[in-house]
């Protein structure tokens, strides 16, 4: 019996260690993806710097040696550029997975958009091996350049959708609190003085008004977000900033509504 007891004591840490190690890995996907993205960005910066130096030397000397170095460094930079964009898309994918506000169908829809871009970049990166001249490298770069507006639009639309998902999770909580308040107000209609009851009814209406304003803003954001793909690369950033401002305004409505709900709860807490 004592032997069995000792055996269990020895086995316990052996069984617990893998469990303890695996739990953080399973729950830290987006931070890990972000670290990978930062690493890829660092690699990209280095390869881009090497590319710039090699390009300048080639344009200065036009020698075969400088041409070969320029070709090698350009190919490495093009490949790393795809790797960097891929790492960023993977980060967005993790953020979509972790978002509490999306329905599963919406997650699938958004992941499909991101995965299509990852597939494009993988195929593009695969062609880097066949580059044999600086003209080939330029042509390969132009492939990404011609697709870049689409890619940038999808990146921005996904970022906005992630924010909308965050707000959606909060909206669910807000709506639950609002419906719980309404039920309590209905149930306690006879317990309060008529004057207080009228105040409570008016406050409830005001909370619903704020909720409506919030909803209108969300619809406005969704329309603007869908229209991002009609814009040029230059107009994209301005529109993106505008939508971010709208997201802040939507959150403000929700925060105001939360404050009103708090006042209503305090009013319901006391008889007088």
């Amino acid at each position: 019996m004592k032997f069995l007891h000792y055996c269990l004591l020895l086995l316990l840490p052996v069984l617990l260690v893998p469990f303890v190690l695996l739990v953080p890995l399973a729950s830290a996907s987006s931070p890990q993806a972000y670290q990978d993205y930062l690493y890829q960005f660092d690699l990209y910066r280095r390869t881009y710097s090497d590319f710039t130096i090699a390009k300048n030397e080639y344009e200065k000397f036009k020698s075969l040696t400088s041409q070969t170095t320029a070709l090698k460094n350009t190919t490495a930079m093009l490949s790393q550029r795809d790797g960097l964009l891929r790492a960023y898309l993977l980060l967005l994918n993790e953020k979509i997975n972790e978002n509490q506000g999306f329905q599963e169908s919406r997650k699938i829809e958004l992941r499909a958009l991101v995965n299509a871009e990852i597939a494009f970049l993988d195929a593009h990166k695969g062609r880097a091996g066949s580059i044999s001249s600086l003209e080939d490298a330029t042509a390969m770069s132009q492939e990404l350049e011609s697709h870049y507006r689409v890619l940038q639009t999808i990146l921005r639309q996904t970022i906005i959708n992630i924010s909308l998902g965050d707000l959606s999770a909060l909206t669910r909580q807000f709506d639950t609190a609002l419906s719980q308040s309404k039920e309590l107000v209905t149930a306690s209609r006879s317990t309060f003085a008529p004057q207080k009851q009228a105040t409570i009814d008016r406050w409830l209406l005001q909370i619903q008004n704020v909720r409506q304003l919030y909803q209108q803003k969300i619809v406005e954001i969704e329309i603007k977000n869908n229209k991002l793909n009609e814009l040029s690369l230059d107009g994209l950033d301005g529109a993106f900033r505008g939508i971010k401002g709208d997201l802040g305004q939507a959150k403000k409505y929700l925060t105001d509504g939360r404050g009103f709900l708090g006042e209503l709860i305090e009013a319901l807490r006391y008889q007088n």
Partner: protein
Amino acid sequence: MDNTSPLFPDTPTPTGDSETAAVLPPSPPIETITSIKRPLPRLWIIAIGVIGAGLITVLIVNTIINKPPVPISEVPQAPTPTPTPVRILSAIATQSAFSILNQTHASLSAGLTATNLDDPILSPPVLELPLGFKP
């Protein structure tokens, strides 16, 4: 007139000779100022004493006046208590539905505080695409 004759024949003319000095009657001893030892008049002693006492008094009074005041810990006056309105809990406040509503509200508040819609992690990378090789 004989100019060499002494003006006062009785008075011996000092010649500087030791013989002549020995003849002259001894002159009274000259008293020097330093050697005068007269007792101070009583009036002066009284005056000095009065001045000294005055100075000491002034010093004492000055010390008392300039003495740093002992910090007096002022007891803050308690604000006049205003009668707290008696608030009676409503019948709903004790219901489980009310505490659930409270929890939902607290959870919503925490969620709103924690949500950052402008997450800096998500800012997309900015890249310089054209290679820029001169043809």
